[in-house]
């Protein structure tokens, strides 16, 4: 019996391995579609050659665990009494080619959806999933995961972690299902040699040096514990927020949602959960019309403070994973990096 913690997979064996995995479960990986967009999609039957490991997937894993819109339950009303039927069970799914930031986000969502009670649909999907990550040797244009301690390589949380060494992958197994998988398909792998370890170490160092953006996340988090943000910063940011919700929707850790009942006839319907955003004015507006959040001044306050101040205080870590997606999507150029830059330059009051 060989040690299953770390092994080497020749790139020649990648697709043969994935083909086997696809028989065990639904296989989801970044796929480049005919319009040039790279999205997490089920890997099709014909072959696996359209898997795209070069570009950042446009969406994170969030839609697979907290879908944009999902049915929580069906309901029927009988003499004023509600009875509920559960949604269909989750499918066994293996995610391949997941970036470190997106897995870190999932670990954060595990925390959010486990307290004060375990969210049934979320954990049903989570328990039926295995995540295979791919460490980033070359960060993408807007990435800053080094600053959020969520990459470029990971130390825990994954089922398997792949590191691209050129003609081969350095594969590390996490606990549980990942190790089982290596054990089952051990004939595709070989043992790690010293040269592989050195190469991996070298690539890790190089990757850390290749970030184009220097975003001072830990500094901002600590400073937020000590001093307030100048009102002028909030106002400047708010004056350019158009309430599109784009940042929250692409964010892998934004988990705000609303629940609506959608009647299908007089006595039955479905209960639907859909994404929401704290940046929306309707999210905080009271029935009588009063809004405790003045959008013209504090549109983004809640979002940034939650990620960088409150989560840092409660978990010791910001809930921004540095994936950079909100930087691309913001119409006003007032994403989290703008905030961090403004705040870290703020003089002491």
């Amino acid at each position, binding site marked *: 019996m060989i040690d299953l913690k770390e092994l080497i997979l020749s790139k020649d064996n990648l697709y043969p391995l994935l083909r086997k995995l696809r028989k065990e479960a639904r296989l989801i990986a970044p796929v480049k579609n005919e*319009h040039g967009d790279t999205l997490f999609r089920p890997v099709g039957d014909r072959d696996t050659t359209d898997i795209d490991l070069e570009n950042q997937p446009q969406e994170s894993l969030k839609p697979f665990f907290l879908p944009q819109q999902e049915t929580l339950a069906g309901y029927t009303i009988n003499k004023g009494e509600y009875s509920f039927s559960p949604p269909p069970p989750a499918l066994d799914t293996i995610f391949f080619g997941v970036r470190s930031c997106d897995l870190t986000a999932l670990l954060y969502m595990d925390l959010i959806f486990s307290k004060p009670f375990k969210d049934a649909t979320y954990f049903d999907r989570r328990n039926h999933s295995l995540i295979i990550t791919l460490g980033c040797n070359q960060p993408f244009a807007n990435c800053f995961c080094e600053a959020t301690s969520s990459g470029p390589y990971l130390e825990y949380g994954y089922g398997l972690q792949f590191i691209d060494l050129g003609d081969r992958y350095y594969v590390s197994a996490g606990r549980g299902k990942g190790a089982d998988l290596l054990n089952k398909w051990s004939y595709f792998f070989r043992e790690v040699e010293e040269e592989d370890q050195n190469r991996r170490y070298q690539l890790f160092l190089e990757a850390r040096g290749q970030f184009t953006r220097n975003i001072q996340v830990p500094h901002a988090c600590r400073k937020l514990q000590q001093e307030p943000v100048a009102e002028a910063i909030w106002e400047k940011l708010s*004056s*350019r927020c*158009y*309430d*599109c919700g784009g940042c929250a929707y692409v964010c892998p850790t934004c988990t705000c949602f609303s629940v*609506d009942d959608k009647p299908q006839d007089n006595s039955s319907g479905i209960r639907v959960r*859909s994404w*929401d955003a704290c940046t*929306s*004015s*309707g999210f905080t507006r009271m029935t009588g*019309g009063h809004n405790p959040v003045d959008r013209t001044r504090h549109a983004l306050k809640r979002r940034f403070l939650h990620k960088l101040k409150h989560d840092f205080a409660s978990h010791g870590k910001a809930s921004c994973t540095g994936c950079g997606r909100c930087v691309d999507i*913001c*119409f*006003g*150029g007032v994403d989290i990096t703008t905030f961090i830059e403004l705040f870290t330059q703020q003089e002491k009051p």
Partner: protein
Amino acid sequence: MTNSIGELVDADVLLITGSNTTETHPQIGRNILEAVDRGAKLLVIDPRKTDIARQADIHLALRPGTDIALINAMMRIILDEDLADDLFISMRTENFIALRDYLHRLDLDELARITEIDRATIHEAACTYARSSKSVICYCLGVTQHTCGTDNVQAVANLAMLTGNVEKKHSGVDPLRGQNNVQGACDMAALPAVLPGYQSLADLEVQKRFRDVWKHDIPTTPGKSLTEMTHSGKDGSIKAMFIMGENPALSDPHLNRVKTTLENLDFLAVSDIFLTETAQLADVVFPAASFAEKGGTITNSERRVQICRRAIPPIHNCRPDSHIIMDLGKRIGCPGMDFDSDAEIMEEISLLTPIYGGMHYDRLARNHGLQWPCLDRNHPGTEFLHKYYFARGKGRFTITRHQEPYEKTEKKYPFTLVTGRGSYHHYHTATMSRNSKRLVREYPLALLEINRADCEKLQLKDGETVELSSKRGTVRITTQITDRVKPGTVFSSFHFFEVPINELTVDAMDPKSKCPEFKVCAVQLKKVAHD
């Protein structure tokens, strides 16, 4: 747009006039803000303190309807400061002397008084615009929806030519088109006096070409403009209408007249994706497929023709507009109405429309779209217009004179009402956006923007229902106290059928473009007595 959208990022000065860009064109607004972040100067001409005006280095908050006076003042200052581009003027333009002499006769103090902007501010804006060789002007319906709309545009063109800010990258005059494909609709001659590609209806060669391909006679005299049609009333000049994807029963000015017209038609057919206010008046309604349920192309503000692919099959019995037209055409005996695919339709467009000459489907798919003019298969498309020469040869300066809006405020109607899109969350008559629960939650009801000083004078509270009337009609609307509008001016949108603001607007229109003056009418506000 004479520019491409991407050029805006590297402009040094952006003059935005009559455009609430960040709310109505967020993608273009994003480019403008990026330019600002890179150090560009932002000048905004708008009576309202819109979000983009708040970002401006200089906000020229003019009195509604005084754009020409303001631009003339700017041009006069540019002449006085010797900032005109003499070489450009002599090489590329004509009739400059007439304009120069006219400008020299103007009194700057008088112009400042008309616009209600102080001279120093106008001076600074004029010099900022003229000193840069990468100055861009973006304009939208705040310029065109006036009785002097055509002259407003001419004034803007004069300003650009005077400073030579036209012929090159990062400088130009950019009308921002309001609907995703309104540029395409104009290109395809949804206009009264031209054939596709702005070819003159009066040109005998052009007429013959269309007759040969369509195997059918074509009308050779211009048709009517939209407002002429919807305001023809009971005069019987129009017997039937086929309205596609347009909601004039809410969007056109002086709505009572529109209703009279539509109700007196012998026959009205409407094709739309929802049962709009207009469709409710129709004899026949065609349920049309939405953008997601059909293929085709969309032409955006930068003249880029892009393929829009079908995402889902049409729901129930909806059909793409092209299929509805083809079936109708066949039944009224129109030849050639048998296109098998969108690509085949595009081939006929390429055949008959020189500026679309090289826009075949396979090229559009490969190139992320192409910008017209694109004359043949090998033509790369055109990034910016008017390089080396204007479409008409030399650019002609035309004198534009200030004229007061059609309707003046008076004792009984002391407020100026400006209308436009009110929110990022709703689109025009909200036919589509009000079907989204989330968008409705974000912007649930029609609001009347009013300055605090006016509210205090009238003893109105924020969120109070008031009666808003003009000589033509009355609506009830909720107040929103804001500094976006100056005292004496109020603003509202035309999104909500419950508050049909166009019952109030005037139907006076620009004599050339026939565009109605949605931007100015005189109104009064009255407190509503509580029941």
